[in-house]
């Protein structure tokens, strides 16, 4: 009882501590920008950033009137691109990974090719993709999926390769069919790896989506911050960066939660 209480209080104290730390960082930002230690061209004040954010999100700002809501549309576009690309990446990553993991033949034929294209930065592929597919949202989606596919693919291959040999023997002893083996042993065994890979893939999907928007002129947060920077609107730039950070934070937290639910069997 006593120990429990102390535990709970301890956790609250920790939360408060880490919150205080974050506040301290923001305070430091506030001081640095307001006192003019760093030029405001580079570092806007937190209040200006916040005002830009409110205005862009079409929320009533400090001066009472709503903004233009541009950022809201951009955020939607970026999130949509990220999520779609990520889903595509996950789908193809798992399918291809499972094929490679299960079949030594497929592995022998395609893996070397994949090993070679894997280190290609997705951003470097953009100019070529534009030439081939044209400057359209589908092309950017393709590049996002391409860039984000690798962690899922590798994790799936690894998960299949790492099926405990003892379990393969259990399958043999029970004379399980190949399909049953894939479905009942291979995939569940690869699941933790796949989920971890998908989490990484989501981060990459966001990054590539932003790069795609910057280079291939798709409307979204990536383009918004680039234009903000070109026009030297630092507060808008920071508002965009903050939104991107928020997207990353929220999506990561969401997936971590899902992962925990799905991998209940790992917890003692």
């Amino acid at each position: 009882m006593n120990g429990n209480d102390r535990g709970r209080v301890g956790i609250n104290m920790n939360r408060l501590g880490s919150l205080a730390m974050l506040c301290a960082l923001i305070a430091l930002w506030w001081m640095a920008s307001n006192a003019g230690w760093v030029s405001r061209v580079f570092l806007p004040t937190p209040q200006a950033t916040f005002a830009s954010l409110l205005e862009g999100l079409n929320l009533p700002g400090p001066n009472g009137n709503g903004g233009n809501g541009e950022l809201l549309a951009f955020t939607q576009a970026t999130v949509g691109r990220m999520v779609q690309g990520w889903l595509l990446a996950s789908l193809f990553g798992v399918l291809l990974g499972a094929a490679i993991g299960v079949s030594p033949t497929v592995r022998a034929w395609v893996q070397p090719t994949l090993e070679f294209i894997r280190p290609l930065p997705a951003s470097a592929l953009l100019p070529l993709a534009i030439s081939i597919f044209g400057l359209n949202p589908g092309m950017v989606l393709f590049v996002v999926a391409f860039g984000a596919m690798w962690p899922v693919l590798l994790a799936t291959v690894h998960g299949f390769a790492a099926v405990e040999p003892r379990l393969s023997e259990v399958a043999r002893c029970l004379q399980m069919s190949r399909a049953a083996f894939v479905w009942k042993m291979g995939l569940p065994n690869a699941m933790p790896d796949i989920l971890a890979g998908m989490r990484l893939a989501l981060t990459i999907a966001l990054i590539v989506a932003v790069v795609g928007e910057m280079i291939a002129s798709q409307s979204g947060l990536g383009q918004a911050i680039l234009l903000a920077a070109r026009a030297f609107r630092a507060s808008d730039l920071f508002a965009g960066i903050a939104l991107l950070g928020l997207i990353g934070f929220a999506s990561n937290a969401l997936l971590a939660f899902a992962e925990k639910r799905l991998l209940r069997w790992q917890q003692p």
Partner: protein
Amino acid sequence: MAERRLLRRLRPWVFPALLVGAFEWYARRAAALGSDALAPPSAAARAFMGAALDGSLWQATGFTLGTAALGLLLGAVLGIALGLVLGLSRRAAQLGSLSIEVLRPVPSVALIPLAMLTFGFGVRMELAIVAFATFWPLLVLVQSAVQQIEPRLLEVSRVLGLSARERAFKIVLPAIVPRLFVALRLGVAVALVVAVTVEIAANPNGMGYAMMIAQQSFDPALMLAWLGWIGVVGFAVNAGMVLLQRLVARRMGMLP
């Protein structure tokens, strides 16, 4: 038997050959239709030879690799140092957790415009972004590596009465080496990708920039050559890291 061996040798090359062939055909057709942005791989190979001979290839490659390495060094040193602190002290880890969770997901490429504003272009801005991009994975992986050190080993060090210094050098550091390598491998890959991306998006130096220049100055063959070369460089760097990792693992008795 000999045929089978030959097949085995050739197998990995079949797909790349098919891809290249298909692309050659497609690009020739597009060029016939008057495209300015596509070139067949054969032309790319010629362009590549040209770039290799006039030295621009090596200069740009050197710049990208050098900047990526420096940025990684910066990001890794900071990330490992902070990771060790957060890993060893639960208090510090708890204090920093929220700030890290909030800052970490900021996509590094989102900082390209900011770095451009702050540093202009050149080595410094690329360095800053590469360092930022590699800092987080190293921080997080080192922290978890330290936290996952076998508690039994730390108890052994207590039972034997090792000093703090001895504990750091004889237990903690060797114990995290394998995971540190995994982290560094990831870091190297990230550093290279980010460096190229920065060059493509903003910084007028290095391989990414050379590729953009080729594209903008009507030289799709050269652009394709650069794309292929970037792939080769990434492949080689990755292979080098794997080799190094194996070597260290063997030296430390992690592999039988």
